[in-house]
């Protein structure tokens, strides 16, 4: 029947609109749901969501050792050439030459925080940090060296 369908349609429309209004009305009256963070004021209590990605950092342990073998998997994975790895050859006590990183160059100004380098890393040497206050007065300050001075590769990481 046409008229029954018509009335059903109107009823359905009104019902769905009222459901939507119920939701927004709930938010309007329940201010505890507000998710706005008043950022500069709440710097100390700021809550960042777990998956927020601020910049790439290299993890160093207490002996100033990292897990980067210099395999350049992250450099290859990076879609916009943010990472540049400069390698050198260490000589092991047995007299063999071994590839190791000299400098891990990270261009923060080019990085889109896509996380591909972190996923590509076979040894888990790099990770995403939650820092986000990156503004500087000179662009050259955004080019960072991720391995700390004097750091070396952790024993047993191949």
């Amino acid at each position, binding site marked *: 029947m046409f008229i029954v369908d018509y009335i059903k349609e*109107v009823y359905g429309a009104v019902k769905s*609109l009222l459901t*939507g*209004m119920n*939701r*927004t*009305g709930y*938010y*309007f009256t329940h*201010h505890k*749901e*507000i*998710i*706005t963070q*008043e950022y500069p004021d709440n710097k100390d209590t700021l809550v960042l969501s777990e998956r927020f990605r601020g910049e790439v950092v290299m993890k160093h342990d207490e002996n100033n050792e990292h897990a980067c073998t210099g395999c350049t998997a992250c450099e290859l994975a990076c879609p916009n050439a943010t990472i540049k790895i400069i390698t050198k050859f260490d000589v092991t006590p047995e007299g063999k030459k071994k590839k190791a990183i000299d400098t891990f160059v990270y261009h923060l100004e080019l990085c889109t925080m896509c996380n591909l380098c972190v996923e590509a890393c076979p040894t888990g040497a790099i990770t995403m940090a939650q820092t986000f206050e990156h503004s500087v007065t000179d662009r050259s300050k955004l080019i960072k060296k991720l391995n700390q001075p004097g750091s070396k590769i952790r024993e047993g990481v191949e």
Partner: protein
Amino acid sequence: MFSLEGITDAIYSWLNSTFNPTIALLIEFAIVVVCVIGLFAVLGLVLVFMERKVSAYMQIRLGPNRVGFKGSMQTMADTLKLVLKEGLVPDGADKFLFNLAPFVVMIVAMLILAPIPFARNFQMWDINIGVLYVTAVSSLSVIGILMAGWSSNNKYSLLGAMRSGAQIVSYELSAGLAVLSIVVLTGSLQLSDIVNSQQDGWWIFKGHIPAIISFVIFIIAVTAETNRAPFDLAEAESELTAGFHTEYSGMRFALFFLAEYVNIFIVCSIGAILFLGGWMPFHIGNWEAFNHVMDFIPSSVWFFGKVFFLIFLIMWFRWTFPRLRIDQLLNLEWKYLLPISMFNLLLMTLMAIMGWYF
């Protein structure tokens, strides 16, 4: 007890005793003009702030909260910014129409204000065809919008203006029929008569379900007529940047913005007068004590309370519903609202003839 009627009476008698009648009349005109412009300015500031706060809370945000107490001076700061901005006229624009359009929209809004009773015996112009006047003048604003869209020499502006035209022409019908259903009950087109007929109860309660249906249709239609979401196809930020006022800047843009909010106020006050009893206090049957307490609240407070309730309702729509496509918009009007409101008007007429209302 506070009443606007007392103030106007005092001013009237003082002017007439001090000056001769012609000069007194002219001074009264000037006072009315100043009051209307003042009302517009205040409404613009208050409604923009209200809209921003309401939208913020509905979207789980905080909204403006830095300038002044809880952000209440935000709209003042915005107005100051707009005043200081340069009013650009694009190359290739029709200069005369381009400059005229915002004033047409504004003046139409001012004209509709004339027959609205703001409080008991507080009305600029109590004409006996008030409802007809309001419906006739309110459709003039589309001329201003078309003017703005055409003279901007911009495809988005023209598209927005055309959409706005189609929309206003369609929705004027169902708004008119919804208004008519109340006129049928009242038997008068005079706005003060309509308010007075609701002494013992508002039409939305006295008219049973048909009155509620026509109230809902009225609210939907006026939301479309004022070009507000979910019917904001004429502006459609995401499709047409800003529709007919894309090319406007500075104070001319502010006039369009102000006219939008003043139009909301006007259609909501028409809705309040027709369905919610205008400035009439809320009365329940024979509860004498309750009715006396309600009478004690000034009639202007009742009027503005109802109007702001309706404005809140329209803002609630805006921040809940997604925008309609143009075909959906015309479907809604011609396939749903218009047949329903016609049937509803028939039902209302039957009710009025048989006396099936309180």
